[in-house]
């Protein structure tokens, strides 16, 4: 029987050996992507597509399984990932800025330093919409209505997400004051607008572009026009510096050996050169957009700062 | 006299528990912003008031009614049953689902009167293996794993 000290020495030895072993033949067992949302949602479907291409480009014969750990806006899943063994076999999904919003408005046991940020794979810009036959058909109209003291209700998925942050920016840029109506999801916000129950809505492009017959797009909050909405000008074109999108990326627990992190990043880069992957992503109508680890980490930090500032100035709960 | 208190007691205890719980939750929710707190506190208030009314009602009626509810003599057995269930749940958390279920089915059956061991062991093994094949193998959804399996 081993005594405690011997066990400890063995463990330390094993831990010291682990990176070497891992470098030699990673991956040699199943990789789990822990998704913080339920099956069938956008984050889940994206993760399942990405999982299949990770299998292909990680150069091992391990398979990738998706595990849905739904709850608390993805916090439970990210807590699990932050506490997982940093061996590269547990990957987390991290949505910007939603996951950042949860770090600010909930008590969480992790921070940005708890993770190694890999790449982000989608970027779904926000758009401001009104009903098709509404008087407000452009940002100019909206600004005018606000100046005339018009009371407007704005539908959105919920507080502390990109739609909320975007709406805040619209408010201050156009001098408006909206009554926020949290409707639980993009689809519900758009539907409430179409039914005439709210005046405006901020939703993701992917949730609205199919409904061009019933919806006016006042602008897309991106640097360039959306491929799904070629005729809709961006906010920047109209003189407002508002960029907001939901990006989905992946993280590993902090302390994962650099060799493995690099292996992942190479796999993500290769994925975006694969036309099959791009085709699969376009079927889900979530705009694929690649940010490498550095660029994405930069975006995460910048957004984090902005969210913290907003929270300190004007907390939403 | 005894019969009366038997029928009366449980309802009284539950009413008091409900009243205490309502008050506790009202205190807990009092710190919330008004818009959030209004609805749950109103509901709790109604539950509390109704419980008081029920308490009074059952105290008044209790004298006329014979204590028919439940079988007081089996109370010990019920508590034992619930404890067994709890032990099983803790075992699921510690030992893992499959091991504890395999053990629980024959043991529980034996404890409560079914002692044909060869049958219950066989049935239990079959059932556990079936669940394993269905969940861990076919559906890729694992049930809790622990020290044993």
């Amino acid at each position, binding site marked *: 029987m081993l005594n405690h000290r011997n066990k400890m020495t063995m463990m330390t030895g094993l831990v010291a050996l682990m990176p070497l072993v891992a470098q030699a033949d990673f991956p040699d067992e199943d990789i789990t992507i822990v998704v913080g949302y339920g*099956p*069938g*949602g956008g984050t*889940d479907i994206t993760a*399942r597509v990405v999982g299949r291409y990770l299998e292909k480009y990680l150069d091992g014969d391990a398979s990738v399984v*998706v595990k849905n750990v*739904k709850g*608390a*806006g993805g916090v*439970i899943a990210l807590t699990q990932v932050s506490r997982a063994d940093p061996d590269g076999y547990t990957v987390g999904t991290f949505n910007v800025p939603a996951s950042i919003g949860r770090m600010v408005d*909930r008590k969480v046991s992790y921070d940005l330093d708890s993770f190694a940020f890999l790449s982000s794979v989608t970027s779904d810009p926000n758009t401001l919409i009104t009903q098709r036959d509404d008087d407000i058909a452009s940002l100019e109209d909206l600004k005018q209505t606000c100046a005339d003291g018009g*009371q407007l209700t704005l539908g959105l998925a919920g*507080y*502390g997400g990109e739609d909320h942050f975007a709406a805040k920016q619209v408010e201050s840029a156009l001098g408006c004051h909206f*009554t926020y109506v*949290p409707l*639980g999801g993009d*689809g*519900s916000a758009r*539907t409430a607008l*179409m*039914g005439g*129950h709210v005046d405006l809505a901020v939703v993701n492009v992917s949730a609205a572009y*199919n*409904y061009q*017959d019933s919806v006016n797009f006042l602008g897309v909050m991106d640097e360039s026009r959306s491929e799904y909405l070629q005729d809709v000008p961006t906010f920047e074109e109209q003189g407002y510096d508002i960029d907001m999108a939901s990006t989905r990326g992946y993280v590993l627990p902090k302390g994962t050996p650099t060799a493995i992190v690099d292996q992942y990043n190479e796999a993500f880069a290769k994925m975006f050169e694969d036309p099959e992957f791009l085709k699969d992503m376009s079927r889900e*109508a979530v705009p694929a957009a690649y940010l490498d680890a550095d660029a994405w980490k930069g975006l995460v930090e910048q957004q984090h700062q902005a969210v913290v500032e907003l929270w300190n100035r004007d907390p939403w709960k | 006299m005894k019969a009366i208190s038997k029928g009366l007691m*449980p*309802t009284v205890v*539950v009413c008091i528990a*409900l009243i205490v719980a309502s008050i506790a939750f009202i205190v*807990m929710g009092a710190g*919330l912003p008004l818009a*959030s707190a209004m*609805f*749950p506190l109103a*509901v709790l208030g109604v*539950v509390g008031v109704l419980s008081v009314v*029920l308490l009074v009602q059952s105290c008044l009626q209790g004298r006329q009614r014979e204590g028919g509810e*439940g079988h007081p003599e*089996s109370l010990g057995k*019920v508590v034992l049953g*619930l404890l067994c*269930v*709890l032990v099983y*749940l803790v075992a*699921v958390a510690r030992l893992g*689902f499959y091991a504890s279920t395999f053990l*629980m*089915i024959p043991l*529980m*059956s034996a*404890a*409560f009167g*079914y002692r044909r061991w060869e049958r219950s062991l066989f*049935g239990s093994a079959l*059932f556990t293996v079936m*669940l394993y094949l269905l*969940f861990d193998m076919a559906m*890729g959804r694992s049930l809790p794993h622990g020290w044993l399996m």
Partner: protein
Amino acid sequence: MFEALWHSLPDILSLGSLLAVAVGVVAGIFLGALPGLSATLGISVLLPFTFGMSPQVALGMMAGIYNGSMYGGAIPAILLRIPGTPAAVATTFDGYPMAQQGRANKALRVALVSSAIGGLASGLALMLLAPPLGSVTLMFGPTEIFWVSVFGILSIALLIKGNALKGLISAGIGIFVATVGIDPVSANERFTFGSLYLDDGISVIVLLIGLYAMPPVIDTLVNPQSGEESHAKEVDDEGFFKSLASMLGYWKTWLRASLIGIAVGILPGAGGSFGTFISYNEAKRSARNSEAWGKGEPEGVAAAETCNNADTAASMIPALTLGIPGTSVAAVMLGGFLIHGLQPGPNLFREHPDEVFGFMWQFLIASVMLLFLGGSVATRLFSKVLHLPRPLLGSIILSLMVVGAYSIHETLFDVFLMFGFGVFGYVLEKLKFPMAPIVLGVILGGFMEYNFRISMLMSGNDPAVLWSSAPSIVLIAMIVMLIVLTCFKQRLSSLIGKRLTN
């Protein structure tokens, strides 16, 4: 449109597609019948595998699972008084008494035929009326949905038998449980004790398993030789076709329950399951022998089971036309559509007619198959369950309860929460507090609060918004009518009662 319907038919009648529907139906019956397992779980498990399947096969299997599970939920509801799904709670009211009287097979047949009829009605609604009904969904904003939930809450009051105080307390407990978690309107944590696992609220399934399954499990354990052996003996086993003939008189109930199921199904967010309570109450209200209801009236089973299948396809209508699913099952099924690149919206029907119309056919086929597959599975397999020695049966159900509670979020927290509700449920049950109002309270409580507060937000706290739209006024009129009629009927019957005794 009809051309597109015919065009999609040959593919659907291929062997692969039919087989997929059949497999789905059988799997669904099992998922529904095992307490805690659900169509939502089944379909979400299936989702990753559907990447490799053709859309027809994947969607067909899902349609089968959905239809099968809604009937499957009735099996334990009738045999053991443990509803397999929240939508089967109303089935226990008359189904279990029937089983106790030795008419379990009859109850199962009524449930089966009614489920199939509800499914057919729902499938037809989806096929013929999806776009127009989608625009009905648009008319239903928060105020209208608030009134619908008031309608549902009223049905709690009508459900209560015996001690009204106890019923109201039960309902209050349920409504309170619904408020636990992050408040959806202002994002504050309510009664979560700082636990992340309570942030999203308490799952109605966890509550359902605890409340309904724990008391019978404890009873089977501690009373191994209970007097309920009569269960197993069938008194009026008349054969399938004969009993079918005796059911034809339920046509009014079938029709009414189908309409209620479809109407509730197209409302987003309601979860569908409360429709069965409304349907049960309405059927009971218009029945001549309403005092026999709750004591083993087959028509009560018909009212509940028709309705819970009638919201299956209907809940896909807002999902496909507007991208907002009516039930949690519809939400995962929508995922199945997305995986195959089928985006919900007005273009869906234009761009992918074969898949969408094919899916509608599959819903109809699933209902028909249910009729043939369901009977044999239920009677041959599940009613044998009752012959198991009671302690063995109790421990097997106990392990299934753990499986059910665990697999919703894959956390042990839910398992212990289920135990807590179980102990609570056992105590309440022994003191004759009714369980159904608790479940209905959980389903409707949060829904009602949310829609009321959202209405107030939208109108700037002007209560006039509550009666300012045509649908709202219609709903209010219906509610008033319901109250007046119920009171009137009670008056009338008490008058008659007095006359007779005099």
